[in-house]
């Protein structure tokens, strides 16, 4: 378990990280989101002490790593893999030697480390690229090399610094799938930072939203997507839901259906598995019209947003009550 307690870090007058406390459980994928400059990158780097903290404790499996001397810290870092936005491979080494590099650092002999590197390369789908140099690879392949390089030391923790931000959407999905697979198969805790809410929605179990060096909201992905508390979180989520702006969607629909009631329903993994709308509609004998719907699958289950239109003559108080009973979040637009 990673326990971040009251961590602060300043650069001159700027507080990059301001009294942040977070707990990250073993085996989970934890996302830290926020716009650039929010301090998420600095926070991530305190976990392997690439950034020293001014104050606070970073406890990894019972050891406060801010107190380790440089030798013990290097030892610890070997069990914390890290991948980066720009991959950061050595251009002077072949794919195989890049993957084997962490073992070269601890003086594993060439044969052994190459054998091991081949194994890891297979796991990330690079077995046919071993002898080429990174410059000939695509972005997605480079990130796979970086992931293999991180995995070769058999880490318990993988830190991901905007690992998909330089990739196209299709490649992003492939890399996210790979991270998900690694997390499941090897029980590696993944801490990732991103400005893409989609990444969080696709692979994270829990998330924290950062702004101005502070964590302004954190919790399970489904809870936060269903019911974001902070404006910034809402804004970030809106970029994912439909790919469209939810508020704009509401305005557009309102213009289209000026008469009657327009409701926005948000489902989580419990409610989206049930034929709730059908049941409620039948029970109350209220006909409704679905005018827009979108359901996405996340790590913790499906999440959906739906807009329904009900004619003016019906009483919507009852329908809202019934839906809320079934844990559907209802908003009248």
């Amino acid at each position, binding site marked *: 378990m990673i326990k971040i307690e009251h961590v602060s870090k300043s650069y001159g007058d700027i507080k990059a990280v301001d009294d942040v406390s977070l707990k990250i459980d073993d085996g989970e994928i934890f996302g830290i989101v926020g716009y650039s400059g929010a301090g998420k990158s600095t926070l991530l780097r305190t976990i392997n002490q690439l950034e020293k903290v001014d104050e606070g404790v970073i406890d990894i499996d019972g050891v406060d790593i801010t107190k380790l001397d440089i030798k013990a810290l290097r030892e610890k870092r070997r069990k914390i893999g890290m991948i980066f936005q720009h991959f950061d491979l050595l251009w002077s080494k072949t794919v195989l030697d890049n993957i084997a590099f962490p073992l070269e650092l601890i003086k594993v002999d060439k044969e052994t480390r190459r054998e091991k590197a081949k194994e890891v390369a297979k796991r990330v789908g690079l077995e046919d690229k071993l002898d080429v*140099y990174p410059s000939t690879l695509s972005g997605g392949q480079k990130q796979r090399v970086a992931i293999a390089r991180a995995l070769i030391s058999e880490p318990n923790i993988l830190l991901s610094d905007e690992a998909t931000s330089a990739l196209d959407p299709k490649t992003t999905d492939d890399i996210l799938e790979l991270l998900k697979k690694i997390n499941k198969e090897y029980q590696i805790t993944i801490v990732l930072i991103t400005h893409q809410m989609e990444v969080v929605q696709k692979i994270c179990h829990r998330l924290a939203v950062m702004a101005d060096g502070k964590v302004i909201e954190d919790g399970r992905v489904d809870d936060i997507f269903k019911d974001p508390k902070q404006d910034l979180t809402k804004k970030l989520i809106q970029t994912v839901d439909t790919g469209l702006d939810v508020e704009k969607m509401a305005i557009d629909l309102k213009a289209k259906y000026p008469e009657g009631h327009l409701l926005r329903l948000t489902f989580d993994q419990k409610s989206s598995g049930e034929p709730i709308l059908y049941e409620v509609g039948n029970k109350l004998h209220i006909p409704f019209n679905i005018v827009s719907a979108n359901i996405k699958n996340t790590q913790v289950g499906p999440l959906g947003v739906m807009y329904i239109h009900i004619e003016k003559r019906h009483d919507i108080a009852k329908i809202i009550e019934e839906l809320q009973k079934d844990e559907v979040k209802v908003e009248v637009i």
Partner: protein
Amino acid sequence: MFFEPFIETIYLTIVPLLFSCVFGFIIGTLIFIGTSSILERKSKPITIISKICDGLVNILRSIPYLILIVWMLPITNFLTGSVIGTKAAVPALVVSATPFFARMVTIAFSEVDHGVIEASKAMGASTFDIITKVLIPESKPALVSSITVTAINLVSYSAMAGAIGAGGLGFEAYQYGLARRDESLMFIATILIVIIVFAIQIIGDKTVKKLDKRGG
């Protein structure tokens, strides 16, 4: 007629180059360790040594070569047992080329992608690991280019070493051309220098191309 000066020029290039590369590499690395913000744990002595090296490089680089020769006469005498001749020109050439090469080494290292250094630190690399396993391999093309430029500088410096009787093609060209007004001989000597410079540059460029796997 040109064989002896030709050999002298080669000697005055290669021998000082070897010394300058070794000393310059060490000094350049020390300066980099002391000044780079990306490396961890700098012990106090290293920082001080690095600062001294940095200052020394600046001072030595600003002294004109001819003056350096004169100032270094006692040292040259101590090292080579003589103040004139080809061998006696070597210490001053080394002293003038070393700071130049040291500066080039520092630049080559600081141009290595910081992300790669950071990634290596994240993998548990020590400063020594970073220098030997990251900085040197990743800056190889730049280092070879620096050796090439330093070698060419030495070819032109060696012409001035003629002033203390070091010989070489440059001095030959000066003697025939200016002193004896034999322009055709001066021309031949100059052409030979040009050929040496081209040869060094071509070998350097070819090596860089072979080492550079960055593509594109």
